[in-house]
């Protein structure tokens, strides 16, 4: 057991999974020789050769489309989209094929594959490098969407995603790739998909977040020490862990959902619907969401208006706590 960053945890997960299972291949743009623009795949090509770890043409549809063929023909591809904003040329493959092969062939074929993509803002990047596109993927039947928020989960969830018989979109919060370390077991382990993590137990209000925002919520709650929030790290956006959400809301009666994805038709809208359907009578205040505005993520000089800060989360929490029916 050693202290590792999310980045190191992902690299270790890939390395150990490849060592154990020869059918795993890792590829994408600059993934091989360089080890990826963020170095998540550093050292893998040297260790496993150019056949299993390789650089591809800048052709996202080919990266994902070829993974479909590989998954059918005995391999387990783990491919990388350099940034989630550049996954869109592959979106046709993901929506029309990756998500559907099992159903289309009535189970003759299925696709054990993972599509990794760094996502989210806060790194002062150029256009198309800061998007949070959860909705685009969570909306598609047949896909799973997983987002870790800690080094421990990053390793365990990625290994679970690789071992899963169905295709998994694995979004990595690049803002916290190197932000902090946590003790991560040296061996292979799985964190089950479809299960949220209760990051902190509490009674007053349920706060649901994922990815880089979980830490922001934790920081926010330090600003309001008199409020005892239950913090849920969703970990898997789809299929969503309804049970953990509902159980928490039944206890607290108040909910805030925090995500960086834009507001309209975003994941929070879905979560609030679930709460309305299943825990309506337990609510003591209208469920609220703190999200990205319905705009294009601004370039760095305007980005701070868009990024959600702990102070803003605390402000929102106080509003909900003050509500009396």
């Amino acid at each position, binding site marked *: 057991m050693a202290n590792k960053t999310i980045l190191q945890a992902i690299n270790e997960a890939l390395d150990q999974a490849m060592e154990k299972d020869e059918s795993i291949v890792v590829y994408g743009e600059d993934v091989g020789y360089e080890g990826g623009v963020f170095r998540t795949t550093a050292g893998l090509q040297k260790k496993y050769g150019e056949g299993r770890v390789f650089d591809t043409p800048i*052709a996202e*549809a080919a990266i994902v489309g070829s993974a479909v063929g590989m998954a059918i023909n005995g391999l387990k591809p783990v491919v990388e989209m350099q940034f989630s904003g550049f996954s869109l040329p592959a979106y046709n493959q993901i929506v029309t094929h990756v998500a559907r092969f099992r159903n289309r062939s009535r189970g003759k074929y299925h696709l054990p594959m993972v599509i990794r993509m760094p996502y989210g803002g806060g790194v002062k990047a150029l256009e198309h490098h800061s998007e949070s596109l959860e909705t685009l993927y969570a909306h598609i039947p047949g896909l799973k969407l997983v987002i870790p928020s800690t080094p421990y989960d990053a390793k365990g969830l990625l290994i679970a995603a690789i071992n899963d018989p169905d295709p998994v979109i694995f979004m990595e919060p690049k803002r916290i790739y190197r932000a902090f370390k946590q003790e991560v077991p040296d061996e292979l382990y799985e964190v089950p998909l479809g299960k949220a993590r209760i990051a902190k137990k509490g009674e007053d209000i349920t706060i649901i977040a994922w990815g880089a925002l979980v830490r922001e919520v934790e920081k926010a709650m330090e600003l309001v020490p008199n409020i005892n929030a239950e913090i849920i790290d969703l970990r898997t956006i789809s299929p969503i862990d309804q049970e953990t959400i509902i159980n928490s809301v039944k206890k607290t009666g108040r909910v805030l959902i925090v995500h960086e994805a834009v507001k309209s038709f975003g994941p929070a809208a879905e979560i609030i619907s679930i709460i309305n359907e299943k825990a309506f009578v337990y609510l003591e205040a209208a469920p609220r969401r703190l999200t990205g505005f319905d705009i294009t993520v601004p370039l760095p000089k305007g980005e701070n208006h868009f990024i959600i800060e702990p102070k803003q989360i605390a402000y929102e929490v106080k509003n909900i706590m003050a509500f009396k029916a």
Partner: protein
Amino acid sequence: MLFEKFDPLKGEMLQILDHKGIIINDKLEPKIAKEKLLKMYKTMVLGRVADEKALQFQRQGRMLTYAPNIGQEAAQVGPMAAAKDEDWLVLAFREFNAMLYKGVTLEQAFLYWYGNELGSKYDDNVKVLPINVPIGSQINHAAGLAYASKLQKKDEVAIVFIGDGGTSHGEFHEGVNFAATYDLPMIVIIQNNQYAISTPRHKVIKSKTLAQKAIAYDIFGIQVDGNDPLAMFVAVEEARKRAIKGDGPTIIEAVTYRIGPHTTSDNPKLYREDKEVEEWSKKDPIFRFKRYLIDKKYWTEKADEQLYEEHKQTVLETFKKVEETGEVPLEDIFKYTYEKMTSNLKEQMAYYQEFLDKKGENNGK
């Protein structure tokens, strides 16, 4: 080397059997066993009969939309006869004859067009990917299959079909570039049937031939008379040898013609002259192949009449069986979304089942 002799930029096209069924290039005539030649021919006739019947079934409202193959039988059966059982067949959607030759049953093929996904659940040993509706995207699947074959040192190739229209798609470029870059065992068969629905190929593609697109990827591309089953066989056999050796992918442009409509929802009279269809009908692949087989004394007119009669019966009986399958059970539309049904899906299915059980009556409760 065969491919060097046919320069796609000079419009040189491989042809062995002319439209009358006469061998015009005896040096290239393949030595195919009688049994295999007859299997090829019988599959083409079955495809033709099935096509004609399918059009009737559709007009009678007994079948969904259907994409006919009439006139393109040789372009599909020739390649499959040159393929091995271990090879992959990656479909676009107008490859009915190729599917039948590769082991998809007539019942499965019909069941798909009848509107049931079970029609794409081919038998376990049949290495065929389901019909691929989004144009051009199947090329990348084939490239991936071929990558896996190469990495795992399996002696197999991926044969992928696409139409002339599909070659305009970005994914065509991405897939061929990918396969060429890693020298993958992939064979692209372009069924150039001259039309992308209503749009003539020359109106939307500047290239003189589609085979010449290979030049950009530094691989071989060859134009073949797509209505000549022997030429298609020879071209694919050669491409396969090269692919297995590690020489990479090949593009084979099968020059053919879609005698029927794009699908049963299409009226080709709106965009093409009868005269053009008549001209192409004279180049019919089945007609010329029959002559060849009769000249070789492998076949007779009498056997031919009998074959059509048998196939008609088979088609009618098979379609009757397909019609008896009826509606898809409720559970089937949910249970193949993931390996295990999620609680969300279970809930949605249970909700609808309850609605059905109560026949919509809930007395306001």
